């Protein structure tokens, strides 16, 4: 079953409302969850007993997607203007199969699995989100990257007439929004390409038709509405590093021990946060996914490679 584009599958066919209610109740109890939704145990292992799924209206109406404006509500208000069909993805660089591909063809025959991940923004707030996605490894391998492919770079759509943030005179971002991963990070089982959310098509404001999700890194790494995949030998320069290299690095692993010049990263507000209960909790190394990913950074000084 493919979640993402046409044909439109009614939500009820993907995950019934009751499954969701149950899931919320059982969250953290791996046996029940795996039986109920076929969630990967690697994704499951990271969930904490008190991780509650963030309400859908918050996940879809509180977004950072500067292509549509810098307010958290701008993407929800403006992103409907983005055309996502047809959607072409350019694949280039160190791979055997390169060129322009229709999005549908890339994911043909692949099944989107549900993954419930914690999502940690560098601005010190977090959510718990039920994504539907395809392992990134599965997607990238079909392009047969060569031995020279040490990194993979992703780019977001540039279409100023549909994206008010891109046409704004007051933005200093050099579009397209660019992000990258080391190949071994990209091939980690936690890394997915998201095509759905809450058992439905991925909404535009969340990065339709597909976006990256690497849950142990700050949210800005998980680039949205991807139109370009490039395999490269050298570490790509990601957008935020390009804007402020002293504040944003390439790795951006969630790390409470490395403080950011704007925000202490020691703790986070789990949304929904309210006036009387900010729902603050300590931030976990690698956003709680250390078991799955810490080995990728063995021997690296994470204070230096932030």
């Amino acid at each position: 079953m493919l979640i993402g584009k046409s044909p439109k599958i009614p939500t009820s066919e993907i995950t019934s409302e009751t499954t969701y209610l149950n899931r919320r109740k059982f969250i953290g109890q791996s046996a029940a969850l795996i039986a109920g939704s076929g969630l990967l145990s690697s994704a499951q292992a990271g969930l904490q007993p008190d991780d509650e799924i963030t309400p859908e209206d918050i996940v879809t109406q509180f977004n950072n997607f500067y292509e549509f404006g810098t307010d958290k509500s701008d993407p929800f208000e403006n992103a409907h203007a983005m055309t996502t069909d047809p959607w072409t993805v350019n694949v280039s660089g160190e791979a055997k199969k390169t060129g322009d591909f229709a999005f549908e063809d890339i994911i043909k025959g692949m099944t989107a699995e549900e993954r419930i991940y914690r999502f940690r923004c560098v601005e010190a707030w977090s959510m718990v989100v039920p994504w539907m996605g395809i392992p990134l490894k599965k997607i990238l391998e079909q392009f047969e990257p060569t031995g020279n492919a040490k990194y993979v770079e992703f780019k977001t759509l540039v279409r100023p007439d549909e994206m008010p943030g891109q046409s704004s005179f007051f933005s200093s971002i050099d579009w397209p929004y660019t992000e990258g991963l080391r190949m071994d990070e990209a091939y980690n089982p936690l890394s997915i390409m998201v095509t759905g959310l809450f058992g439905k098509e991925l909404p535009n404001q969340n990065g339709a038709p597909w976006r990256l999700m690497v849950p142990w890194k700050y949210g800005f790494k998980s680039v949205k509405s991807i139109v370009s995949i490039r395999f490269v030998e050298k570490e790509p320069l990601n957008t935020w590093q390009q804007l402020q290299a002293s504040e944003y690095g390439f790795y951006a692993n969630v790390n409470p021990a490395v403080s950011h010049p704007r925000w202490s990263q020691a703790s986070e507000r789990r949304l929904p946060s309210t006036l009387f209960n900010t729902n603050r909790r300590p931030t976990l190394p690698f956003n709680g996914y250390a078991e799955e990913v810490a080995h990728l950074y063995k021997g690296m000084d994470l204070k230096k490679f932030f």
Partner: protein
Amino acid sequence: MVMVKRRPNSTLKFTLAVFAGAPFAWLVYLISLEIAQPTSGLGPDPAEGLLHYLGEWSMIMLLVAFSVTPVRRIFKQPLLARSRRMMGLFAFAYVFLHLLAYIVLYVELSMQQLLEDFVERTYITAGIAAFFGLLAMAITSTKGWRRRLGQNWLRLHKVIYLVVPLALLHLIWLRKDGFADITLYILWFVILLGERAYQVRKSRQAATV
């Protein structure tokens, strides 16, 4: 009601107070929504919602207060002078609430976190410096202090020429992208400075003639 005397001065002052107080009234309304149903009034992250709302109005009210004298001079409205103190106090009130939101929702009363922010985060250093400048002005804004300080009162209140740039720096340093409002604030500030420079030159010329 407040408007017992219908002198033009009090009407003007009252109107200004209504305008300056409106964003606060709106905030009270949002908070009442929030109390009735969490996340409805201030969004899913009130710490950010409140800080940005109050921060934006702090900046605007600061510039409004800084505009009172130039507007009085340009539009020949001498009565405006009597509203200057009130507008300054409004600006201070918004900054104070902004700081309060920061203390309660952002660092959550952690003195250690506040100190870390003050030392390590330059935008916070600038913000707090601006706040103390305004605090000194607010405390000494009474008739009694004005009398006691004499000539020094004017000198002390020149600190506004530091407070506004510090507030602007605070904003420039913390903003990541989307500089429309900041551009407007800077332009506004530069125009006000220009008017003052013009006044100084005029009075110097008058003195030498």
